[in-house]
């Protein structure tokens, strides 16, 4: 038996937990989120490279919030999102247990936000090689080429909002796209409306995106929309020294003013 199964079985048996949020094997062998309430179901739980999905967003769902003793099986993306969500007061210390893994694959319980922060500090925060290469390719484009690139991508968007739904940082009870007086963002999924939606989304995630890429992984049309929020994340780091998902006490870059802030981007 895998140590995740053993550990969660014990937690459920002892009554320390009544709900485990984790991963199980889904269709065609891919991993998917699962909610385990009984010790005998702990055997469903898995944790391997396929468990790539960021599942931190479940922590603030009303049905989950109502559960008093819960634990989340957190991959590195989920851990960073927990830190970021904590910094925005969306989740609170002690409301849930966090089960994480060492680099060697050993299961550990992170008992406080401080411990999560310390663990996160040991993780890699940059982009993967493929994303770096695509970012460089886009940045090397002329303004017209870049416009063409995104126009083509946005023309494919069906506005299913899977990107929004799967992003742990998109927690607003009412999204801007749902406000219709005035209608800030067009409802139909035409190219212009799609562009407005994705640019708005990227801006709202400025300094908050932990670069997990879940938005793009969730996109049924495979749009590389994660690159938009990544770009803003890189800018936040470069200009304001802000890396999302690293500090529970961090102030959001767009909600903070410091006298030493760069202003050279204002033209």
């Amino acid at each position, binding site marked *: 038996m895998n140590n995740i199964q053993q550990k969660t079985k014990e937690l459920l048996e002892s009554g320390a937990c009544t709900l485990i949020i984790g991963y199980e094997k*889904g*269709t*065609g062998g*891919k991993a*998917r*989120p*699962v*909610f385990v309430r009984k010790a005998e179901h702990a055997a469903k739980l898995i944790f391997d490279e396929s468990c790539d*999905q960021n599942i931190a*967003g*479940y922590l603030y769902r*009303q*049905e989950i919030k109502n559960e008093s003793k819960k634990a989340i099986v957190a991959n590195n993306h989920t851990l960073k999102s927990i830190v970021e969500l904590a910094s925005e007061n969306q989740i609170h210390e002690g409301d849930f247990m966090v089960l994480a893994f060492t680099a060697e694959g050993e299961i550990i319980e992170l008992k406080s936000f401080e411990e999560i922060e310390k663990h996160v500090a040991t993780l890699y925060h940059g982009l993967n090689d493929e994303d770096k290469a695509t970012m460089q390719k886009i940045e090397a484009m002329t303004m017209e080429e870049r416009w063409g690139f995104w126009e083509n991508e946005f023309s*494919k968007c*069906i*506005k*299913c*909002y*899977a990107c*929004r*739904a*799967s992003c742990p940082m998109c927690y607003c009870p009412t999204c801007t796209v*749902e406000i219709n007086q005035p209608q800030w963002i*067009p*409802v*139909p*999924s*035409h190219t212009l409306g799609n562009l407005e939606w994705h640019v708005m989304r990227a801006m709202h995630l400025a300094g908050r995106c932990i670069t997990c890429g*879940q938005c793009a*992984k*969730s996109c*049924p*049309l*495979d749009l590389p929309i994660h690159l938009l929020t990544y770009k803003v994340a890189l800018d936040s780091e470069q200009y304001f020294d802000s890396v999302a998902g690293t500090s529970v006490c961090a102030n959001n870059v767009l909600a903070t003013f410091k006298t030493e802030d760069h202003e050279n981007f204002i033209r």
Partner: protein
Amino acid sequence: MERKLLTKDSYKLLISKIISGKYQLVAPVKVDALVDFRRIKSADEITEDYIVTVSSAKSVAFPRNEKLFGFEKNNKKLEQTDFDFDSIPHTVLLGVRPCDAMGFASLTSIFCWDSVDKIYTTRLERTIIIGMSCAKADASCFCTSVKGNPGNTAGNDLLLTKTPDGDYITEIVTEKGAKLVAEFYELFREDKGAEKEPLLANVPEVFELDGILAKINSKFDDEVFWSEQAMRCLGCGACAYVCPTCACFDIQDESHGKTGQRVRCWDSCGLSLFTLHTSGHNPRQNQGQRWRQRLMHKFSYMPDRLNTVGCVGCGRCSRACPVDMNIAEHLKSIIDN
């Protein structure tokens, strides 16, 4: 059913002739790593390397955004431009999977329920559907569980089945299909009577449809059952937008200055805003209730009222779902519970 044979060379020629004629041709093409329907200009653009396209074929008759009419305010007078039926192109839709083709019957039952949606019906009337039988299936396919099969002719005008030689057995399903064959008669040969069955994918039956239809209504009030099923559902619209039978739409006015247009665009019962009243009350307050609506609509309301099941087993919803809400698996649990 009358059959003809289309050799691989004639197949390409047929595509070229369709393109250079009065039709626009929509077919599966590779869009980066995915395969989706696009209007094509050359036979070389078509791919046959797909289980199903990412999006369903429904947008040919029910586009994701559609201008219903235009309006313009001049002084105090409002002028309206009606829907231009002439703008609807004559289309040949090629490479449609049998599941997708079957989906049009469900869509039509909704769009022609009490009044006939003339825009939808005209679009469909002007579309000739050339289906392509499935030689491959994946873990998300379950057409055989909803009375379909990988070589099902229903909903197609012509159905092609590729033989090991690369030729296509052509089944002439409808009058429309027969007309197209007559239009390009020189390209079709006499059928050699090759067996079609061995060329089709094996799609195992996941659940027994009659069992679901008999039991689903009794599950309506079981809130715990539905909320457990929908626990991981994120509440996006991916499943509905890729679905060949989901027909829900929103009506939006888009205006700029003195001109504007009324647009019909896709909507989804999975989204929380879908049933939100102006009073602030939402009759479907949680995702469990919204997920129940999705399944009940397809497996209870449509069979009861429109005499059709609202699911064709293409499995697109499951493939598109960010959290693998496998619909077949969830349906099966209705029988098992």
